[in-house]
């Protein structure tokens, strides 16, 4: 869209087009609101400069209605923009149910991506065009922020909390991907490329890409290694809630609340199990926060989610 001084910024999604439209319209409003001020200041400064003989009689020193109108009218105009921009913002947080789910782990100073089929990438993300995508992001250390200017999108990744970013890239191409939240020494080089491909090319890329085990399979392996089934399997000696099909269901806790067992819930339940204890059970699960990292946690969650699939 913009081509000043050799720098360009493509619009790689329909969201980008809407944001640009909003920004351009707001810039126009800026001109409408400021130009009269600039012109009048210059005109007055010249016309009424000291020493020049002009009519200076009956200069007003107040006019309530004039003042009210120039406070209220710009505000109402801006309010319209507020509603427009809030709608775009809310649309961002309404992800498509058929989204392609990518796991992202940020750490000083790299981005790690994993596709549903297990393909891993570092600092590069290949995605199909015209396919809704949902990134589930976790940070291993400090706050990072995934920023793709071509998509006009950015989301901070706060350690301890999953962040999601949903979008649909529409234009194949290679775009910058940055860390936007200052994260220490190599903040400036914590980035890489977003490569949006035609769906067929993406499928081909998936075939060639370095294919590790899928997150769910990795999770299953970890599940065995860590001995989770010793308690969580049915009929085990130490009673622990069954995990099959738990994902996405409401859970009743000892304090009486019934949160939905979403990824954040499962994340906290694995790393900090005593933060919320399921009703009818005792807080006996060990804390895994210092034993496994965010990637492993994500894999475990993938396996727990897959258990839900199996049950169906």
């Amino acid at each position, binding site marked *: 869209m913009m081509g000043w001084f050799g720098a360009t910024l493509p619009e790689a999604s329909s969201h980008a087009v809407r944001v640009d439209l909003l920004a351009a319209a707001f810039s126009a409003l800026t001109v409408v609101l400021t130009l009269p001020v600039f012109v009048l200041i210059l005109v007055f400064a010249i016309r009424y400069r000291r020493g020049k003989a002009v009519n200076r009689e009956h200069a007003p020193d107040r006019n309530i209605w004039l003042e009210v109108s120039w406070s209220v009218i710009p505000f109402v105009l801006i309010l319209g923009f507020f509603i427009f921009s809030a709608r775009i913002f809310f649309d961002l947080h*309404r992800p498509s149910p058929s989204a392609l789910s990518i796991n992202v782990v940020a750490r000083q100073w790299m981005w790690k991506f994993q596709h549903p089929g297990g393909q891993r990438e570092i600092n590069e993300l290949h995605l199909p065009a015209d396919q809704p995508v949902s990134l589930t992001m976790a940070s291993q250390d400090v706050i990072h922020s995934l920023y793709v200017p071509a998509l006009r999108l950015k989301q901070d990744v706060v350690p301890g909390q999953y962040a999601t970013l949903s979008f649909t890239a529409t234009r194949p191409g290679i775009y910058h991907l940055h860390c936007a939240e200052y994260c220490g020494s190599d903040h400036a080089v914590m980035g890489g490329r977003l490569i949006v491909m035609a769906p067929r090319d993406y499928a081909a890329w998936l075939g060639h890409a370095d294919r590790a085990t899928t997150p769910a399979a990795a999770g299953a392996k970890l599940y065995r290694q860590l001995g989770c089934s010793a308690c969580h399997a049915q009929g085990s000696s130490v009673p622990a809630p069954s995990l099959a099909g738990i994902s996405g269901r409401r859970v009743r806790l000892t304090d009486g609340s019934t949160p939905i067992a*979403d990824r954040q819930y499962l994340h906290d339940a694995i790393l900090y199990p005593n933060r919320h204890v399921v009703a009818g059970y005792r807080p006996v699960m060990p804390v895994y926060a210092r034993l496994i990292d965010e990637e492993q946690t994500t894999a475990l969650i993938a396996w727990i989610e897959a258990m839900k699939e199996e049950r169906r």
Partner: protein
Amino acid sequence: MRARSLVLVWLALLLLLALSVGATFLPIGGWRHGISIGVGFVKAGLVLWFFMKLRTAGGLARLSVLGTLLFLMALILLVWIDYASRSSYRGSGIMTGEPNAGSTSTHFS
């Protein structure tokens, strides 16, 4: 203000303290916390009004206390709005926001 009234205020404060401690043992769920904080406000009000002499102080002193409280309440209220409506699960039963739609619906092949 006479000494006797000050002592009466003191007695009222002790009574309120007993009330808030007592409320802690009532089986009324989360209301306990509300009561003990509410009683705290009444006690603070008494201290401000009688001991700190806001009763006789000018409007300016009252305004400075009220104004400060206004900004403090703004801090707490707006922080509360954020926590109460964060989309991710945060462990308490107070949250009202919709659950994180993106994560429950995702699946792995």
